[in-house]
Each structure stands twice: as structure tokens, then as C-alpha cells.
């Protein structure tokens, strides 16, 4: 279902929505008319600029962001201060980093299914995997689709 086309509907109806910034409809701009003057030789090669939003965000409706704090996922290249792009519509499969709500906190770990048991696996030798048991209050909130990491402080 997550590949379905999003039909933008009346963006004017609800005043406080800023999601529109996710889905601007881009109209290619042709800089000359057919009848007037010499056509720009570049027109045939004109393409849209790269749209990072559409690259990072498969399904705007189910995409959310969170900021990372802590170091238990450092070997999976998830570092403090990074921004996670989370897609709630994706299924949590084995080996996929997920955001889950565990004991009153949002936490990021790798989702593991081993012999019908579920684990939340950190990526730092200092921490142990957490086995998910029935008496725990754990729910997967969404799947981490992207990690936005700044290489150095600019």
C-alpha cells in the first residue's frame, strides 16, 4: 500500500498545515516560446532540480522525524544529534533499525527475530540486546528509513 500515489487534496482547507512543504508540485519551466526568437539550446536538456524531499521521503503521510540522543547505536552509524527520518508505514523486519516506545521512552535499536523471539539489539559492545517478553510494554513506533548525519560541526 505504501507505494500508492498521494493525491494532494485541498491544501487550503486546514490553515495550520505545513506538510505542503513536503509535496510541492513541481512544474517544469520552459524559458522560451516556440514562436518567438531563437530557442535556447539547453531547453531540451532541462530537467527538474534534485528534490531531496522526494528522495528521502517515500510516503509523506507516514513520515516523521526524531532527534537522536545517546551512543548505543554508534556502530550502526546512528550518533547523538542525528535526525532520523521515520516511516511508520514500513514493516519492521529482521535487521532493520526501528524506533520503539519502551518503558516510557522512545528508543532506537535494531529489530531482531531469532527462533520466534524478538530482540532489540544495540550497536555498541557496552550494551546488551534486550529480549522482548510478553510482560513488557513495548511497541514499534516506526522504521528508521534514513539517518541524517552531519560529518563535522559546520
Amino acid at each position: 500500500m505504501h507505494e500508492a500515489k498521494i493525491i494532494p487534496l485541498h491544501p487550503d482547507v486546514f490553515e495550520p498545515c505545513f506538510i505542503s512543504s513536503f509535496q510541492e508540485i513541481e512544474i517544469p519551466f520552459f524559458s522560451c516560446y516556440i514562436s518567438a526568437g531563437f530557442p535556447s539550446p539547453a531547453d531540451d536538456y532541462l530537467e527538474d532540480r534534485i528534490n531531496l524531499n522526494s528522495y528521502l521521503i517515500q510516503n509523506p503521510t507516514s513520515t516523521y522525524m526524531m532527534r537522536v540522543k545517546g551512543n548505543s547505536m554508534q556502530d550502526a552509524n546512528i550518533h547523538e544529534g542525528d535526525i532520523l527520518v521515520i516511516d511508520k508505514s514500513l514493516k519492521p523486519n529482521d535487521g532493520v533499525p526501528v524506533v520503539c516506545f519502551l518503558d516510557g521512552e522512545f528508543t532506537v535499536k535494531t529489530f531482531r527475530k531469532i527462533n520466534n523471539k524478538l530482540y532489540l539489539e544495540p550497536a555498541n559492545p557496552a550494551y546488551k540486546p534486550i529480549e522482548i517478553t510478553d510482560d513488557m510494554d513495548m511497541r514499534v513506533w516506526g522504521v528508521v528509513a534514513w539517518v541524517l548525519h552531519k560529518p563535522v560541526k559546520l
Partner: protein
Amino acid sequence: MTTLLALCDCNNFYASCERVFNPSLNGQPIVVLSNNDGCVIARSNEAKLLGIDMGEPFFAIRDLVEAKKVHAFSSNYTLYGDMSNRVMQTLSQFTPSIELYSIDECFLDLSNFYNKDLNAYAWEIKNTVLRWTGIPVSLGVAPTKALAKVANKLAKKSKKANGVLVLQEPEHIRKALEVTKIEDIWGIGGQYAKFLKKHQIHTAYEFTQANDSWVQKHMSIVGLRLLKELRGESCLELEEVMPPKKGICTSRGYGVKQTEFKYIQEATATYAAKCGRKLRKQKSCARFLTVFVETNRFCEKDKQYNNSRTIVLPVATNSDMELIKYADIALKSIYKPGYQYKKSGVILTEILPENQIQFDLLDTVDRVKHHKLMEVVDSLSGRFSRDIVKVATQGYNKSWHLRCERKSPCYTTSLNDIIIAYV
């Protein structure tokens, strides 16, 4: 082709929005308060069970809130608006035509789906919305809008339905109408319910047995249409496009009562600019501008005063600068010192499309320039925060601003407010 409509309604929408980003609120009582944290405007089921009523003033339930650990939130319309938009866009994947009925309700046209397993389809809709947005919804499917409303209400109430009810078979429809009280029918207000009960009409089913001309005589054409809808004859069409607004009003109570002209002027100018933004969004201009001021009529010890003034603008406009200029003129003419003002507002009427304005021969305003400037202002406030650029009259003082001490962060629209995930 038979018509078939689904009414999709978000369960306890505002409370659900808060819960998506704070799952520890699941199972806890939640109330959401109106502007200025005045009254309860939304409740979770748990809060309803505590006996908290809609519209109850916050101060009246403060003890209960503390004793029962009720979570009270100021309304966060930025968050609710974005979440509503997400829900509606998810719904729009399932049918080509939908009607946004309110912030948390939407009609879906399922007329082409009559040979599909509607129950399964409705469940797929419900589950997808929940997975994508975290918002639980209920769906009622039926041949008309009024029946879809009935189905939706039952879907929510019945444990067996668990949030989805399809009413297609005549005997199912009849049963549903029999258990629906007259006052629970969409569009029947308290007065009509009283009137109908006096005539031994207590359920929706009894209403459908009423005589057409009798209903029209006592409840006008609106009542007759409702009657037909409940009998399964579709009279209310899907309104896919919202018509442009005919009047625009922005008015708010101040966080604290104000006496000084300067602060009332700032608030009123800000409301005028808000109206301007709404006008530009729907590409129209307004010709009439009304400003009003009010003291708090519930505060009996205060001296009371309220007044309004309407100005006919020389040329219809949607420029903040012009709207603020005339709002200021109107305000100056009605402001009187010595009163404790609680509220002011700006109302725009005679609204017409931008491309149909009559120009004035003696017009001295450079409208092209204004238009360009407003475009820049709108794009800046879209890219950065609202009111990043504003007319100086709007001021920098915050004393009249709304009270919202319990507002949750704008989790989905502000990068500074996104949730922290601990690793």
C-alpha cells in the same frame, strides 16, 4: 449505480494526536482546553468516564484533574491540523473522491466498490490510517450520508463492530435505526428532538415512518431531506471542493484583560494580518472591514462596553498594510479608555476573487508593489516562523497573547520540537 458512502471519524481526535507522540498517555484520562485554556473542548474516553463534560470551565474541574491525574493540554492546532491532513491524505488513497467534513471527519465515496467485500475494505482503511498516522478511526458505511453517520455512531459504540460497521442490507439498516435515539441523529438539535418526542417519535426508525408533508411542515426542507436520507434515498451530495469563504473573521480573547490602547491596537493589527493571510491563500480581496471590541461580559463587577465599526475600503484589498491601516482607523473610533477589554476582532466581508476587483480612478496605492511584498512576506513566514516579518503596528509585546500554558510541542512541523529518541 447505487450510492455508497463511508463516514470516517477519528476517535477522540485531539487526545489521540497527543497520544501518538506520547504513548505513555494511552489509557490515561486526557482533556484538551480551548483557546486561553478556558474550557474543555475534547476528552479521551477515560476523561468522559470521570464525568468531565464538554465545555466545562477548566477552573471548575481543577481539583478533579489533580486528584485523578488527568492530563490537560492547551489546544495545539498546528499539531492537530498536520495530523488531520495526514489522516485525510491517507484516506484519499482509497477512493478518488472524498469530502473533508471537519478536522476529524471525512466522507468517502465508495459507490464503485459495491461488489467488493466492504467490511474487509473498511478494515483495511482503518488499519492503514492507524499504521501510517497512529490515529484510531471508526468507519460507518451506508447508502446515504445520514445513514453513514448512524453506522459510524454504532460502529463506535458496539463492542462487536469494534469501529467498523457496514449497513447495506435493508434489515440491518432497520435494526440500526431502531436502536438510534432521535437526539442522536445527525442534524437534529435539542429543540427538534424535544418536539419529535412530544409526537411519540423516539427513535430514528420511528422518524422514518413519519409523514413527509408533516415533517416538511414542521422541520422545513432540511428535515424532509434528512427523512429521505434515513430511508436510504441519497439527497446530500459529496462536496469535494470547499467553497471559498464568504466572510473571514479573526478574533481572540486576550490572555489577560487589557486597558491600554497600544496593546489592543497590536492585537487588532495582528488579527487583521491573519485575515489578510487567509484572503491571499484563497486568492481573494475584501471590500468591507469591521472591527469590534468587547469587555468581559461574564465579569459583572467590570464596567461593560462593546462596540463595532465597519469601514468600506476604497478598493478591495488583501494587503496586510492596508487592512491594518483601516483596522486602526476603525479601532481608534470605537476605543474608549477606562475599560478592561477582553477581546477584539476583525471581520472581512464582501469578499471577491483577486482578479475581479474594481479599481478606483483616484487610487494612490501601488497595488503591484503591495502584492509583491505580500508574496515575499508569505513565503518568508512559510519558510521560517509565522510573523517573522510583520507590520510594526502588530508589535512585539506578548501581554495580550493567548494563554496556552499546557501546549504540547509541534512534533511534526517544527524541527526544534521533534521528539528525542534515546539510543
